[in-house]
Each structure stands twice: as C-alpha cells, then as structure tokens.
C-alpha cells in the first residue's frame, strides 16, 4: 500500500510500453493516457496518510513525500489534459512520448521519497533521462532542428549539474562515512565551519538548482523552453520543479542556523536569479521564452523562503511552488490551446484573444496577474509571506531588492495582458476549446483565487508536511 502510487505508475508505464510495440489508434491512446494519469493521481491520493520506510531505510514515506507525489501526479494529469492533442509530436511516437513522460514522473516520485544519496541520484537520473528524450521528440516541421539543439543543451547542462551533484555526494560520503541523509546531515552539522562541508552541500544543491533553473544553473532554460514542443515545455516548467523544491527543502532544512556561508551563497543566487530572470524577460517576444525567464525569477523567490532556515520559511516556499505550478500550468493551457499546429506562440499572436475565446483570455490574464504578484491571487500571497518571512529574519536589503523585482516583473506580464485584452485580433477565428479544457481552466482559476483569498488551510497543510521531515 505504501508503494501503491509508484507501482500504479510503473504498471501504467508498462501498459503503454506494450501498446507502443504494436500499432495503436492515436485518439484512443490519448484518452487512455489521461485515464492512466487519473488512475495514478487517484492512487497517490489514496496513499495519503501512509507512513513508513522501505528498501533498507533509503525510501521514506511520510506526509511530505505523499503531498509532493500527489502534486506531481496532479500536475502531470493537467499536462496530459492540456497537451492532449500532442499537436507537434509525430503520431507514430505518441505511445513512446507517454512512456517517457510516465517514467520521468516515476523518477520524480521516487526522488521526493528518497533519503539516501544513491537513491536520490538514481531517481533523479531516471527522471532526467526520460525528459532528455522527450525534448527532441518534437516534429521537425521546418527542418530547423531547434528541438535537437534544445535537447542537446538540456542534456549537456543536465549532465554537468549531475556531475556537480555526484561530486558533492562523494564529499559528503567522504566526510561522514554514510550515504543515509539523516546520518550525513547529523554528522555534517558538526562540520559547518569546514569549507569541505560547505562545498559538499552547495554541490549537491547545484543538481537541484539546475532543475529549478536558479542562477547560475539556468542557462538551458530559454532555448529548451523555446525548442521543446509546447506540451513538453509545460511539463518541464512544472513537474520537475516541484520535485526540485522538495529536495531543496529536504537538504536545506538540515543546515541549521550555523550555515552563514551557505546563507550568503543562497542570498546571492536568489538576488541574481530574480534580476537576471526579470530583466531578460522584459525583451522577449516568444511567450514560452518569457515564461522561462520569469520562472528563473520565481525560483529566486523560492530561495527567499529556503534561506530563512525556518520551518515557516520552508512552508512558504512550498506554498509558493504549488501556486507557481498552478499559475504556470494555466498559462501553458492557454498556450497549448492557441497554438493550432503546435507551433510556438509569439506574444503578438495573442492579440484580441478576448474576442476569440473569452475564457482562455480570462485564464491567461488571471494567471499572469497572479504571477506578477497582484492581489487577491495566490502569487501575491506567496510573495507576501516569503517577504514577511525574510524580513522577520532581518534581511531588509534582500526584501527591498525582491520588492523592486516585483515592480520590474509587472511590465512584461502586463504587456501580454495588454495584447490579450486591449488590441484587436489579427486572426479572427474563434478558438474552439473542448469542454474538458474549459473545465481544467476553470479549476486552475479557482485554485489560484482560493489559495490567494483563503491561504490559511494551505499554509497549515504545508507546515505540517514540512514538520514531518524536520
């Protein structure tokens, strides 16, 4: 029962693998994949409240891991729905695409439960390699091979980051003689004034900085976001980030108080991420690139929660990433629906969207206002709590810099909303979105508003989840 979600997912992946061997009806395949995704999501929800360890104490099941697993599978389900048509993926490889997506999610689910260095490494690689393949699976319509460039970039940067992480892990093992995270951290706690310990922790963190796209491990973001198909980008922009935050919290929460050097490094990364992301996003014309850069800035905000080294800070970071993923998925839902053949969407293509599809325009506007941090949406509440938490620790300058970044960010979000609502459509065709998509958009909107207006239950929940790993 404890391993039920993973087993369900593995079973689903195997079924898809069997289907991929023969010829399949693509339409049925899509519905089937969504069904499997829903089944996995359901199984994860069922396993809520389970606790225990598996595999010789290297795999821990607690509220924290189960919360992340349900978030990951929930996000996967939304990605499956919004990318239902897989517009820019060749029909013949649809089953394989789903197979790799499921395997990647399996890796991520294992990642959030792993508390042993090697298990973490294996799980991370399992999820990464599947995504490395998903990126170049885009149909090469123009023979420009953008997707190949994106795939190679994603792979090379990913492998480098993994190398860093593995190197850091070897330091950890060398310093402590164990690969069990609890033991490692207990022993490392005595060594925080040692450069070797700092290097070890920072290098391990680097692996997850890459997934979350934090400066200076962000270089892959714009090209991969642009080169991968819309559905793949939606996946990369949301699901792995959840797992990355899970692991960042797990590792950072073990650094307590004493880690002044680590604190300074995290601060620098946070500020640089915000400024780099927001300033670069200002000049983008491709909406996926813009969202990529904005993602870098948001990752910087998440670090604000981590570097408080407080339970409440981790809970806020968790709240923020949940909100971020929801807002991001809402944006990608609109992007995937607008793009008629799966081509990239320029910001100008959105002009007059309010006439072509009012619901999609509303979804996009709310999601972008929320990303910009305008109340009463979840983005504001998240930012507000992160800032309040950081200021509680006395990081006034940091908070002011973050606040300034909010002001910078509003410009590019607003310019998208501007073309959506305030200009006339170039292309007058109405966008037909299915009932299914509309319902998903509505649910995402509702989550964005409810999490922003009544955050208390969510905060309680994230706090108790984080508490379970402290």
């Amino acid at each position: 029962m404890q391993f039920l979600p993973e087993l369900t997912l593995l079973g689903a992946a195997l079924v898809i693998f069997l289907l991929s061997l023969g010829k399949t009806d693509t339409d049925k395949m899509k519905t089937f994949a969504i069904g499997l995704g829903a089944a996995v999501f359901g199984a994860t929800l069922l396993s809520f409240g389970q606790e225990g360890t598996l595999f010789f104490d290297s795999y821990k099941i607690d509220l924290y891991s189960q919360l992340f697993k349900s978030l990951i599978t929930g996000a996967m389900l939304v990605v499956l729905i919004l990318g239902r048509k897989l517009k820019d993926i060749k029909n013949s490889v649809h089953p394989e695409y789903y197979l790799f997506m499921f395997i990647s999610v399996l890796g991520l689910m294992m990642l959030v439960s792993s508390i042993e260095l090697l298990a973490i490494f294996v799980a991370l690689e399992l999820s990464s390699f599947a995504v490395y393949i998903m990126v170049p699976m885009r149909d090469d319509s123009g023979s420009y091979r953008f997707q190949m460039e994106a795939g190679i970039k994603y792979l090379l940067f990913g492998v480098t980051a993994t190398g860093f992480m593995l190197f850091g892990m070897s330091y950890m093992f060398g310093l402590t003689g164990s690969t069990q995270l609890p033991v490692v951290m207990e022993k490392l706690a005595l060594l925080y004034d040692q450069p070797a310990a700092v290097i070890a922790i920072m290098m391990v963190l680097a692996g997850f900085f890459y997934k979350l796209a934090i400066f200076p491990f962000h270089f892959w973001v714009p090209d991969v976001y642009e080169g991968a198909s819309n559905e793949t980008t939606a996946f990369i922009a949301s699901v792995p980030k959840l797992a990355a935050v899970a692991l960042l919290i797990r590792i950072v929460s073990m650094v307590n108080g004493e880690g002044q050097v680590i604190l300074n490094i995290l601060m620098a990364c946070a500020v640089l991420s915000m400024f780099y992301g927001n300033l670069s996003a200002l000049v983008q014309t491709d909406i996926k690139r813009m969202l990529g850069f904005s993602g870098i800035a948001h990752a910087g905000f998440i670090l604000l929660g981590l570097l408080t080294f407080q339970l409440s800070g981790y809970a806020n970071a968790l709240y923020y990433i949940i909100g971020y993923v929801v807002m991001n998925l809402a944006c990608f839902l609109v992007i995937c629906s607008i793009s008629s053949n799966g081509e990239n969407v320029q910001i100008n293509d959105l002009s007059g969207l309010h006439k072509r599809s009012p619901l999609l325009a509303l979804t996009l506007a709310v999601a972008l206002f929320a990303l910009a941090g305008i109340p009463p949406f979840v983005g504001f509440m998240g930012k507000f709590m992160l800032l309040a938490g950081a200021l509680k620790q006395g990081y006034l300058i940091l908070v002011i810099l973050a606040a300034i970044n909010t002001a910078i960010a509003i410009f590019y979000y607003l310019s998208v909303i501007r073309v959506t609502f305030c200009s006339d459509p170039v292309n007058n065709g109405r966008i037909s979105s299915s009932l299914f998509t509309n319902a998903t958009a509505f649910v995402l909107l509702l989550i964005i508003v409810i999490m922003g207006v009544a955050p208390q239950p969510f905060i309680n929940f994230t706090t108790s989840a984080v508490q379970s790993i402290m």
Partner: protein
Amino acid sequence: MDQLLINPDYPHILSSLIFLPLAGALLMLFIRNEFFARFWALGITTLTAILSVQLVSAFDTTTSKFQFVEQYNWIDSLNIQYVIGVDGISILLVMLTTMIMPLCVLASWSYIKTRVQPFMICLLIMETAMLGVFMALDFVLFYILWEAMLIPMYLLIGIWGGPRRIYASIKFFLYTLAGSILLLVGIIWLYKTNNYSFFIPDMMWQEYSLTAQIYLFLAFFLAFAIKVPMFPFHTWLPAAHVEAPTAGSVILASVLLKMGTYGFLRFALPITPEATTLLMPYVLWLSIAGIIYGGFTALAQQDMKKLIAYSSVGHMGFVTLGIFVLNIEGLEGAILQMVNHGITTGALFLCVGMIYERTHSRDLRSATGVGKYMPVYVTFLTFFALSSFGFPGTNSFVGEFMILAGTFKHSVPLALAAIPGAVLAAAYMLRMLQKIVWGGTDNPDQSWLKDLNLREIIILCPFLFFVFWIGLGPQPFIDLMHISVVNLLEQFHTHQGQAVAAAEFILH
C-alpha cells in the same frame, strides 16, 4: 483594542457595503442581456448607496473611535485579520464612493456600447475595492484592496478607453504599482516591529526611532504622492484621465485620487508623526508647486478632459497643503475639499463626457457656442465650473477658504504663494466657460445638438445639490469629522519629542 467601537444595531453593515457589489459582479456573470445588465448594476449600486445612508445616520459624531467595527481572524499564521471600521476621516469618503457609483453606471448607460457586462463587472469590483480601502483597519487587507483595484481600473482604461488607451493604462498601472511596492516593505517592517501585528490602530502613535520614521514616511510618501498625484509624480494622471471612459474618469478623479490623501491622513500622520513634522516643509512647497503648475498647465489646454485633469493636480495640491499645515482648519478643510473635489471634478468629467457623446471630440474649439443650443447643459456646467474655482456659495469655496485660513495660521508666505493658484483656477475655468457658453456658433455648426435628456439631468442633479449644500451649510459635514480630526491633532502634537530634539539639534 480600545480604539474600536462595535455597533450592535448594525453588526454587518460595513461588510454588506463591501460585499454587495462583489456579489453583484459575480451574479452579473450569468446575465446575458446587456439591457438587463445595466439595470442590474444600477440596482446594486443604488442599494449600496441606500445602505450607506443608514450608516451615516447611525454614525456617532461624539467619538473618535472606529465605529461599526467587524473583526474576524483571516490568516492566523501571519496574524492577519479581517477588521474594518470607519471614523470621521473615512466616513465621508465612504459616502462619496457609494453615492457616486450609481451615477457612474448611469453615465455609462449609452456611452458603453460594447462588452457591457464586463464593464459593469469592473465597475462593481472597483466599488468593492474602493470601499474596502477606506474601511480596512488591517494593513494587509488595505494593501490587498489597494493593489487589487489596479486590475479593474486598468481594464476600464485599457479596454473601453480612447485611442491612446494602451499607453495610458500601462502608465497608470506601472506608476501606481511601482510606487506602492516599497509601501509593502514598510508594512512588513511595521508588522515585525509591532509584535507581529498588522492591526493599523496599534501601529499608530508608537515610539519608532526617528530614522525609521523617516524611511517609513518616504515609503508612504512615494505610494501616496503618486496616487494623489502630487507634483512631480502627476504625469500618469492626464494620460489616464484623457483616455479613460467617462465613468472611469469620474471614479479616478472622485475616489482614487482621494486614496492618496486618505493614506497621508490615516498612515503618515499617526504612524510617523515626527518624520511628518521634519519633512513637512518640503511637502508643503511641493503642494504649492502642484497648485501653480496645475493651474498654468490647465490654462494652456485645448482638450477639455486634460484641462480638468490638470486642474485636479492643482486642487489636490490644495488638499495636501491643508493636510500638512497640521492645524484644525487646514485638516478639516482638506477633508472637506477631498469631498468637494470628488463632487465638482466628477461632475465636470460627466459634463465633458456628455459633450463627447454628442460631438465625439473633447476639443475646446469644437465645443464653442454649445451654450446657445444646450441651455440646460451649460447651466449645469457653469455651476460646476464656478464651484471648481471656489466661487462663494459653492462647496469648494468653503474647503479652500478653510485650507487657506489654516495656511495663513501656519505661515503667511506659504499662503501668499498659494493664492495665485486660486486666481489661475478662475482663469482657466472662465476661459473654458467663455468658449463653451458664449463662443460663436457657426464654426463648427452646433445647431444639430440636442440638449440633455432626462437621464443626464438626473445624473447631474445630485452633484448640483451637494455643491450648494456644502457651499451654504457645511456644518453637518464638518461635524462628522470634527472629533476625529481634533483627536488626530492632539495625539500628533503629543508625539513630537524626538522631532523637537532633532530640530533643536539642527538649530544649535
């Protein structure tokens, strides 16, 4: 918590005022018929206005405490509460808001032809946010509504606005947001310093260090001065006013600008009293600069909306002047003038909107000689223009007179510097009147113009009523605010220890 007064007869009146328009906006989503949508919005706003009359009739003018208070926990982990109440400073602004909204709906009756339901939804959400801003006693609640208001206002300008609406709406949004971002940092700092509480009355009259007060004041000043707008932060205002639809202009002029001055009264004075005293001279001279600058610029405008927008800069300069002379005449005059400006300028924007609906031009030259064919219209216009430059017998005269009296008490050179502003106001308003009322009628030919219809007369009548009521018998309005203002000033003067020390240090 002794600053709060819970009124058992009306336990939820403020919440109903806030949430009625919001509920109306949500139900509007299900209305398909545009005609019905207009009536629905009118009904909701009228109902809110009627409710607010009850509020003012039950308002206790013998106490400076916050009345009709409602208090609930909202976000426990950060100690954020949903707590609302009104006192003498905010009640007039609440009334102004509720009274003006039905008229805004009426003014948009035929002006808005496309996407009526979204327009009305924006108006109703605006009303919720504006009322909430004036009632909020929790700083986070205040900030959320303060910011949330930007979204519907942005859409009002950006979708239903004039030709340069995109530029104007983005400028409006960016200016206001950028201004208030440091306010947020200030709020969190206050929260940390005040034992992790966002409760506004608890933040007032505390002994913060002078340095902290100065930084806080600057954060407040940036946010509120942009909203007022004070010279030199006013550049978003003409753009936004000119491009906004009539109802948007009226809301902007009548209510939104008051939020800046309300912010000074509610936050800057009580939370940073000593910094206020130290920085007061600079604010006063900025106000003078705004009065003179607004007057001269208005004198040069051909676009009627721009003319009134720049006149707003001047009028709001008078308001900040009255606030920062920090005596009873000045403060009461300032609050009264906030209401007056809301009435008069709102009415003037409506008048311009009515011309615009007919001639599709706001140019002064294309409106010359309208008076001959629209006698009813110019009668209204004349009264509002007279009120705008403070003609005795109209509302603005009382307000400006009190402000100037307070200024004379504070410093004679300052008052003398403000006088030309009043003269300039007469100059630009008479110039406008002269062209519209008595200008030649053959270029362009105005003979086809129809005079005001019944709906338009109904819109303007309440404004005229208040112009004369406040102009001839302002006492009831002053009574409403008097105790609160007296209390504010008393407290203010007892919290000047550090400022006095600093002043002595500078002098010696």
